[in-house]
């Protein structure tokens, strides 16, 4: 167990190192602090959503609605600026994310339906809401100067967003590794039936996992809207693949029960530095998509190849399997 974890941590470091070395060889001035700071700031958006997804994936669930919640929360926080102050508006925006996560969690834990399909449906619903509220037009906030405050770089490299991301992911690391609730998440993810028999309230952990993921997607969306002073119903639609890729690069398994916060940090930094490198080389968006898709597929296949031992090949994915109703006792 510790050995495997060690390998996966090294894997992240190797991939991140290679990305940085190749990027710095290809892109002139890549390793300047200003470039890295920009990359970190961009990665923070993916990173905040990835924090929530890490917890959910470890618990054996997934949330595909993150991108839509991201857009919705941002829109709400920007629209409310006309009525109330910026800070309360931002808080309401984040709470919208919490509420969206609670809806996901209630449906998954309550109805016992597959989280992939359910969050696919709620993604459609949240995205529609975003279009509905805004009439499919981008909305702008009231205070333009706020963007500048958020773009301020301190300690040479951090912005508000990236600092927040780093702090949160370190907190997540300690929560997952050092606390009982954190360990329980792993238990639920690796064997929900055994976890339940050991007295762990699986359903409550799943519910709270979704609430957590929704809140963080909301936080990311609100920050994005404050930084750009805009809320748009199409924000975040390309984030899903990037976020899942980041978490998977970090060694978190899609089958649940395995993963780490520091791994996700590495994965997010990898995706972030790759994005920045490609943008600096003016590579078209669709080629960037090909790259992030390729990374995702290659790493998932690699995961599969390395760790099929102990699991019969072709067994149903955990997202189906660990649903007590669908499982029917044949694991």
């Amino acid at each position, binding site marked *: 167990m510790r050995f495997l974890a060690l390998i996966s941590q090294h894997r992240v470091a190797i991939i991140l190192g290679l990305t940085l070395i190749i990027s710095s060889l290809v892109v002139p001035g890549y390793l300047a602090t200003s470039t890295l700071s920009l990359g970190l700031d961009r990665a923070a958006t993916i990173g905040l959503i990835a924090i929530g997804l890490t917890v959910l994936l470890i618990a054996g669930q*997934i949330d*595909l609605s993150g991108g839509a919640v991201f857009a919705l929360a941002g829109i709400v926080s920007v629209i409310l600026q006309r009525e109330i102050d910026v800070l309360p508006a931002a808080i309401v925006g984040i709470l919208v994310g919490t509420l969206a996560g609670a809806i996901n969690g209630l*449906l998954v834990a309550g*109805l*016992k*339906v*597959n989280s*992939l*399909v*359910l969050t*696919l*449906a*709620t*993604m*459609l*619903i949240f*995205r*529609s*809401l*975003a*279009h*509905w509220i805004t009439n*499919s037009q981008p909305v702008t906030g009231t205070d333009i100067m706020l963007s500048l405050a958020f773009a301020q770089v301190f300690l040479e490299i951090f912005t508000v967003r990236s600092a927040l991301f780093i702090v949160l992911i370190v907190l997540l690391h300690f929560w997952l590794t050092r606390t009982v609730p954190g360990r329980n998440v792993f238990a639920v993810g690796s064997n929900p039936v055994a976890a339940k028999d050991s007295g762990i309230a699986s359903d409550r952990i799943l519910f709270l996992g979704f609430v957590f993921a929704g809140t963080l997607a909301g936080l990311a969306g609100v920050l994005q809207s404050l930084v750009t002073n805009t809320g748009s119903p199409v924000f975040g639609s390309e984030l*899903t*693949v990037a976020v*899942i890729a980041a978490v998977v690069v970090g060694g978190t398994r*899609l*089958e649940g029960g395995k993963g780490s916060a520091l791994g996700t940090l590495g994965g997010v930094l990898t995706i972030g530095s790759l994005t920045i490198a490609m943008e600096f080389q003016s590579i*078209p968006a*669709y*080629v*960037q*998509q*090909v790259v*992030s*898709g*390729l990374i*995702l*597929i290659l790493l*998932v*296949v690699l995961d*599969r*190849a390395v760790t*099929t031992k102990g699991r*019969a*090949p*072709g*067994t*149903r*994915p955990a*997202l*189906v399997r660990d649903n*007590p*109703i*669908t499982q*029917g006792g*044949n694991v």
Partner: protein
Amino acid sequence: MTDTAMEISGVTRNDRFTRGSKLADMLSKAGLGFAILAVVLYGSFVSPAFFTAGNLLNVLTSMSIVGIVVVGMTFVLVAGGLADLSVPATIACGAILSLGLQPMIGPVPAFVLAVGLAGLIGLLNGVLVGYIGINPIIATLGVGTISLGIVQAAVGGVIVYGSNPASAEFAKGRLFGIPVVVLIFLAIALVGHFLLSRSFWGRWTLATGGNYSAAEASAVPVKAVKAGAFVITALASGISGGLLGLTLQSARPLIGAGYEFSAITAVVVGGVSIIGGFGSVPRAIAGLIFVQLLTNVMVLNGVRTPIQGFVLGALIVGAVGVDAALRKRGGA
């Protein structure tokens, strides 16, 4: 051999209807019929334009394009493959290539090549899901992103226009007063229905989705069956995309966006189990008819597009919830 597989899976899996008598089966089939009838009645009352030949023909035509995808998606769900999210990419592949290659190799070879390449995307999905055992949603999401990017790169990320009026005439034309697109859809639906309900492949598909290990133990080529479902969906989406491109005479990279949800909604609303092992093509098409008529009524009543998406999402949640509830009652 396959009979044994069916029997084993019939006992082990929590089939919704083996425990729940013929009555439950009847009710579940009739329920959708009543729902369709209710929408038709409501539509005719609310909007005078609804129950006219012109409008219904429009619904039928737009339904056919999605319907071709629905036939394929039914196989994916029944085989226990959850869903194919690469449909927008395969539709775009079909549409962009069947138009873009026209000047070089002529309309018919262009169409065939486009569908073939879409099938290749499906094969990639199938290998990843069936043989390597990757989560279908993740695999198809990734493969879809990659293929859409490649198709866009191939044409430089621009809109492609048709250059062969004759092929456009054919796709928009009618045979015996019925639009060609509708006829093609009906043909594909018939083939799909017989493949799923009458052929050994269909029995294998049901067995694989119903109980993977039991099917495997009964010498059903489960991996090939699962992979095949994705190939079938990709071929269907390729054809659908090609027809869409020929009808519109233009194809943008995002031409297929949203079709995956429409198809999944139709299949799930039709009562095909999201977990696999249960479902048929006519059921899925009944779900499609219901969803399409509902959408049509909403459009005629001036309901805005976002709300339609909202209703679609709610329908999926509802249908999946009902599926889960029925399973629970069937005895978990």
